[in-house]
């Protein structure tokens, strides 16, 4: 059959991989299994965009025809050099939205924050960093207002990351203020992206943490009120391409399910202080768990019902007050 008579790239591929050696060769070059190749040919699987470009490289003698046929199924496919191609992350699956709504409606309030935030963060990490280039996603939460009814700081409450960021970083849980990217986003109630360490200089005195080469933050909003933000850090600069940024924004919208209504604050209540450098904070926060333990055990001795969550909130508030007394971090 003349190659020009193939109606689709899948049909062409199916013809080419009838030869088992050729099938294995192509699979090896694309670093996929032969079964995956067969699925493409049978139209039972959708290849990633980057794999389509690799396919062109593996079949240079059919490049022109392949580009023409692939473009029939994927309009806009031009065969452009790979470095200009973004593996555009797909939408958040509808099954995941359904799962989150189910979690919201069925999980006891005491466990809802942990359950939903974990599910969202794991899903987000899987979509945004499938190749483990190094990403950390943090839920940054407004601290309850002080006596003047103002929110004075934010706190990193849940973190999930791929290497080099450790799996569990809750013990790092740093307070953030006006000096930070998260503080900027919460104060202004709009997202901000720093593609590299040079951007943002002079706007706020953000201190970059180890391995962080790019960062972005997206507000978590509900009816115009704000609970905090979703902070994403990457080991690579220029990671936050438009489609990724849009996807993160959607995850930030999903985060609305994580918080209780009373944890969203009027923007006018946001009056963040400058917080101490995170290395200074770490020395204080090492005693967090012991303090929570003491508060809980004391409550039990007093025969008072005090949940782990309430005990944590009390101790976080104590730490906030202590840290607000320390010299703030202001980058020169």
């Amino acid at each position: 059959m003349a190659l020009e008579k193939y109606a689709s790239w899948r049909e062409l591929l199916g013809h080419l991989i009838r030869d088992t050696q050729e099938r294995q060769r192509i699979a090896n070059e694309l670093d996929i299994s032969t079964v995956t190749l067969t699925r493409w040919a049978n139209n039972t699987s959708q290849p990633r965009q980057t794999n389509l470009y690799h396919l062109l490289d593996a079949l240079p003698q059919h490049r022109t025809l392949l580009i023409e046929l692939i473009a029939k199924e994927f309009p806009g496919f031009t065969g452009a050099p790979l470095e200009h191609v973004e593996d555009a992350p797909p939408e958040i699956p509808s099954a995941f939205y359904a799962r989150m709504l189910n979690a919201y409606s069925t999980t006891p309030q005491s466990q809802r924050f942990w359950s939903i935030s974990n599910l969202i963060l794991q899903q987000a990490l899987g979509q945004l960093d499938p190749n483990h280039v190094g990403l950390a996603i943090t839920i940054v939460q407004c601290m309850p207002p002080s006596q003047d009814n103002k929110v004075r700081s934010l706190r990193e409450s849940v973190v999930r990351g791929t290497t080099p960021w450790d799996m569990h970083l809750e013990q790092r849980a740093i307070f953030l203020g006006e000096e930070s990217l998260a503080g900027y986003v919460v104060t202004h109630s709009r997202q901000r992206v720093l593609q590299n360490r040079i951007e943002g200089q002079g706007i706020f005195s953000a201190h970059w943490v180890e391995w962080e080469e790019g960062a972005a933050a997206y507000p978590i909003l509900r009816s115009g009120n704000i609970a905090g933000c979703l902070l994403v850090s990457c080991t690579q600069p220029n990671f936050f391409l438009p489609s990724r940024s849009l996807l993160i924004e959607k995850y930030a919208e999903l985060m609305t399910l994580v918080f209780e209504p009373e944890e969203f604050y009027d923007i006018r209540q946001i009056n963040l202080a400058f917080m101490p450098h995170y290395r200074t904070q770490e020395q204080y926060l090492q005693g967090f768990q012991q303090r929570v333990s003491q508060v809980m055990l004391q409550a039990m001795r007093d025969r008072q019902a005090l949940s782990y969550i309430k005990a944590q909130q009390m101790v976080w508030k104590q730490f906030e007050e202590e840290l607000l007394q320390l010299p703030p971090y202001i980058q020169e």
Partner: protein
Amino acid sequence: MAKSSDSSAEENAFVIDESSMEMAWLLNQNLVLTKGMEGLFPEKFDLSQASSILDIACGPGGWVLEVARENPTIEVTGFDVSKQMIDYARAHAKARGLENAHFEVMDALKPLAFPEASFDLVNARTIVGFMNPQAWPLLVQEIVRVCRPQGIICLTEFELPLTNSPAFEQLSEMVVQAFQKAQRNYFPQTKYFGTTTLLNRLLRESGCLDIKKKAHAIDFSAQTADHEGVYQDYQIVYHLIQPFLIKMGLTTQEDIQWLYQKMLAELLSDDFRGIWYYLSVWGQRP
């Protein structure tokens, strides 16, 4: 038993009711185990010639997805009795573009719907939650059947941690008693699951060769790197298992809540000490 109206879940023998919280916990536990084992496998298996791997009772698919990601030329399949878990796992695989990860709804307590000699490696990690002494040999027979000759069969199980927290120890003892009442325990009169003592014999009696073992010890004492992860794991699982303990008549809602809060407080103390032991046993299918 699960209370879901999903017909597959009605047959779900897991002691924890199916829920989104359970799903989040399983995903989290998968990360804890992999970190504690220092990898997805107990040792660096030679997978250069492998084309297919099976995971038994995969839950939401965390292990399958990671194996698929690290081995793009291998078809990795996971199955679970829960359709909700499988639907979630499939959506997750699609969202991550893992075309070599596949999921099926299937019951590990029944004959597996795979042809003979389908997989180069079959893995079963911490399935004690739904197994019983009679089911183990039957499952291993099925695992041997679907594993290719000279393929690898790998079983990993655990005992409850050793700690200096009186509340944790009391809760753990209650869990073991509940398993005994439900006839799930291999040792009927002790305070252990006993499953780790079973693994070597199961593989040996099934004819496996070159059987090896590796023990993993996760030190989650206060101020260790693993404390937070294991703490979260037991914070959730000892919440999830409370309905089972009440159902087995071992405690009341009020008492278990009190004991649970005490456990959380003790685990956060600076002088908390705890170690969690796992055992992996693997062999070659003849």
